[in-house]
Structure formats: C-alpha cells, structure tokens
C-alpha cells in the first residue's frame, strides 16, 4: 500500500520533470531580469537567434512554395511582371506630374528624412503584431515615431525605444484603432486592427464602399494601408463590415523607415486586450 501511494505521489510531482521545469523557469526568469534591467545587452545577445529565425522562416516559405504547382506559379509570375511594368510606367508619369505640380504651387518640401531600421523579429515569430527593429535611441528613435514600409506604407508606431533597438506596434494589432479614409471619395472610417496583419472597419451601407477600394491613413497626404477584400452585411442593418487586407504584408517586412508621426495618426490609438 505504501509503495502504491509513493508511486502516485511521484506521478503527480515527478522529481525529474519538476526539477528540470524549475531549472528552466529559473533560467527564463534570469533572462526576463536581464531583459528589464539591460535591454540593449539582451537585444544584442538574442539578435543572432532572430536572424537565424528569419532565415528559417524564409526557408520554410520557399519549401512550401516549392510544393505548389509550377505552371500556376509561372503564370502568376508572368502576370505580376506585367502588372509591375504597368505600375512602373504609371508611377513614373505620376511622379512627373507631382513634380510639375510642386514646381507650380511651390509646395515641394523634399524627401522626408527618416531612420532606416532593419527588422530583427516580425510576425509570426513574434506572435503579437509587433516588429523588433535594430535601431534605437542611439540612432535617434523615440517612442511615438511612425514606421513606414516599402513604398511609404504606414505600418505602426514605435511603442518602446531602447538604446539599440525598438518595438513597433503594428496598426493591425488587435483592437488598435486609427482614423482612416475609404475609397477615392475619402469616406471617414475608424480602422480597427484584427491581429495577424488584418484590419476591419464599420461603415454605412449608403457610403458606397466596394470590394477593391483602397484604405488610407493620414500621413503626408493620404497613404494607402490596405484594400477592402470582403464586405459583410445583414439586410436589417444599415451598417456593413469591411474586411481589409494590408497592402504590405507585415510577415515579409525586412526594413522600416522611422519618422515623426503626423498628429492625425494618434487620433484614436487604444489597444484593447
């Protein structure tokens, strides 16, 4: 009887499992302590692991892509090349038009200066909609700066700046709200982060927002942040629910430009659990 009791007791609190768990937990608490007291040392130590993580994620993505049908992929590449050529032409002509207008109106303020930062960790590694970048207070980064991706796409706001690194909370973080516009007629909406890079917004049916409409955030002018990919509505409700996909996938962001955010971006920041 006594032996049986001991066996059950061991099953509940197996010494091996517990001691290992306690050691690991103590080690992690030390890591947490270092993270809080010496954030720069911590980031410098873990940065190589994050870089390895980026390589692993890239490798996994390539492997996954390799299983897709080659014919579909080549057709997709061809289509993207055509789209790219068209967009480049449009972009060139628009840039010229803008330059002419700036010259005429005298509003050319030059290219805004920013701090270029490499991304150390990004979703899905981070889990939260957070980017960790390798530029910090030493480089001039301060909390509240806005982060822009390729093409000037607004991505998020610097929430924490350490000496040599910073954390950027993406606009897509669950519950994060920002004032935005939908479509070419600039219908005012409240953009709500859904996590995982996605957004949503509620708008009146009468507003006439349709699938494919661009969503803009205020910056210098209106900056495209996403496109409407689905609209959900109920016949009895005067409102409809917009599902918005980001134009720049946060999962593949490798660098960001950090600049002082325009005041409008702070209209309604409010993370919710």
């Amino acid at each position, binding site marked *: 009887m006594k032996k049986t009791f001991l066996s059950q007791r061991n099953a*509940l609190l197996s010494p091996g*499992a517990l001691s*290992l768990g306690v050691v690991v*937990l103590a080690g992690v608490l030390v890591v947490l302590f270092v993270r809080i007291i010496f954030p720069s040392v911590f980031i410098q130590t873990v940065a190589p*692991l994050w870089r390895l993580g980026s390589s*692993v994620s890239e490798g996994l993505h390539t492997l996954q892509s390799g299983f897709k049908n080659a014919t579909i992929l080549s057709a997709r590449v061809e289509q993207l090349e055509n789209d790219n050529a068209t967009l480049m032409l449009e972009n060139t002509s628009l840039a010229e038009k803008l330059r002419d207008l700036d010259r005429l109106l005298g509003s050319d303020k030059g290219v805004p200066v920013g701090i270029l930062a490499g991304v150390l960790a990004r979703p899905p590694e*981070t889990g939260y909609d*957070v980017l960790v970048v390798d530029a910090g207070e030493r480089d001039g980064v301060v909390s509240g700066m806005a982060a822009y991706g390729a093409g000037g796409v607004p991505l998020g706001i610097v929430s924490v700046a350490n000496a040599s690194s910073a954390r950027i909370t993406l606009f897509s973080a669950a519950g*994060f709200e920002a004032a935005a516009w939908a479509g070419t007629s600039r219908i005012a909406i409240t953009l709500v982060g859904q996590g995982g890079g996605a957004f949503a917004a509620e708008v009146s049916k009468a507003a006439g927002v349709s699938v494919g409409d661009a969503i803009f955030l205020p910056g210098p002018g209106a900056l495209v942040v996403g496109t409407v990919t689905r609209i959900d509505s109920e016949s009895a409700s005067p409102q409809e629910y917009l599902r918005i996909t980001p134009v720049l996938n946060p999962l593949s962001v490798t660098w960001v430009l950090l600049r002082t955010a325009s005041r409008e971006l702070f209209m309604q920041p409010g993370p919710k659990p």
Partner: protein
Amino acid sequence: MMRGALTLFSLVAVFIFPAPLAIAVALLSAVFSPLTPLAVGILADALYYTESAYVVPLYSLWGAVVALLAFFVRRFVATSIIER
C-alpha cells in the same frame, strides 16, 4: 534525455519558429515537463510583449494555464506511460 532535448527545443523555437509552431512544441513538452510552457510563455513575452499591442502578456498567462492543466493531467492520467 528526451525530456531535456524537448525542453531546450521548445525554448529555442520561440526565437526561430513561427508562433504557432513554437506553441505546439511547448504543448508537447508539457507532457514531459509541466513547467516548460510557463517558462516558454515568460520567455516569449520577454522577447515580444509590448503594452501597446496587448494589455496583458498573453503568452505568460496561457503558459501558466497550460502548466496548471499539465499538472492536473499528470495527476489523473495513468502515469506509468509518462514516467521515465
């Protein structure tokens, strides 16, 4: 040996693998070492948590919940399989 390797792997996974995969490894390691999910959760929050993204550190909370569940499961399940 297996237990140690899996625990180490679950900690490293937080750095190099996407979150869902790291969570899966942590859940698996809970079978052998109930405290590991809590450790993994605290490590993940040390690395990635920021107040402006979420009000509460979700990884740590879920890690604690899983650790607690793992203790209960180890109590009620026939333990001869789990034992070394």
